[in-house]
């Protein structure tokens, strides 16, 4: 895996202590970086002539509630030229999670970050248009958080049929 060793060298040169841990699992490399340095990390691996991670294949988040740091934001990078894949990961504290946007580096991050904001409530500073992507604009809460209620209606069985039926908001003509 000489290509990914090169990626680690580039990241260590660019970030120094900003590279926190490196994990290898079944040939997939995950690099945890300092959240404050994520834009520099993306820019470094994108611009290094030996790497050319020009494609953000995906960007997502995970909620590890009730652990702290609660959130992880994950960047799946792909180098079309060198045939390499690299995963960048950062962890965020649960209270008012916020991280710098990478839209300036990868324009395709625009809608990914909007979806992560919509589903997890992680704010991306510097994002040009941070609105909800999937849920209605007036929606309260962020549905993919672990502390978000699963459903909004109790399941109707024979023993509680009438009780739930009374609470059901039927449409008027």
């Amino acid at each position, binding site marked *: 895996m000489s290509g990914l060793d090169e990626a680690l060298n580039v990241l260590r040169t660019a970030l120094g202590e900003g590279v926190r841990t490196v994990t290898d699992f079944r040939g997939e490399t995950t690099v945890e970086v300092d959240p404050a340095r994520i834009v520099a990390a993306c820019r470094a691996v994108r611009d290094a002539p030996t790497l050319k991670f020009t494609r953000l294949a995906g960007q997502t988040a995970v909620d590890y509630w009730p652990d702290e740091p609660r959130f992880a934001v994950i960047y799946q990078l792909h180098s079309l030229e060198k045939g390499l894949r690299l995963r960048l990961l950062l962890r965020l504290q649960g209270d008012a999670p916020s991280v710098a946007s990478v839209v300036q580096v990868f324009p395709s991050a625009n809608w990914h970050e909007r979806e992560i904001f919509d589903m997890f409530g992680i704010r991306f500073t510097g994002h040009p248009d941070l609105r909800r992507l999937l*849920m*209605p604009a007036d929606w309260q809460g962020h*549905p993919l958080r672990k502390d978000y209620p*699963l459903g*909004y209606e109790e*399941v109707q069985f024979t023993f509680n049929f009438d009780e739930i039926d009374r609470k*059901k908001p*039927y*449409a008027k*003509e």
Partner: protein
Amino acid sequence: MGVEAKLGDLGLVTLTLEKAVNWSRTRAMWPMLFGLACCAIEMMSAQASHYDLSRFGMELMRASPRQSDLMIVAGRVTRKMAPVLRRLYDQMPDPKWVIAMGDCASCGGIFNNYAIVQGVDEVVPVDVYVAGCPPRPEALIHGIITLHHKVEKEKLAAHA
């Protein structure tokens, strides 16, 4: 040349206006071209030549709500789609009817979560619920016939 030429003078048929109107409403009830999810596939199948909904005067799926009498809610309705569905219903001219096709439209089905409306009767008044996941075309046709029976018993004053 119709049946009257073959049989000769058939004379008069007397019936109430209510019956005549309700009969005509059931024989040309145009559904709206509106599919939301997998149930729409079964609705298309019911519409196609094998099951042939045109037997019931329903060969026209109207692409505009202003020309439809019947809304077949075929599939799950998300909370984001619900205002759109209600708006389409409001744009349909009276008299109008609604069939909730399938489990998702009837009660949320397997999707008891934040995204799906738990039964489309929270958004529009439903006349007939068709169970199934998805219901076969026969089940949908049975639902439509059930609705026809319901319409035939309606009072004209109810829509006034």
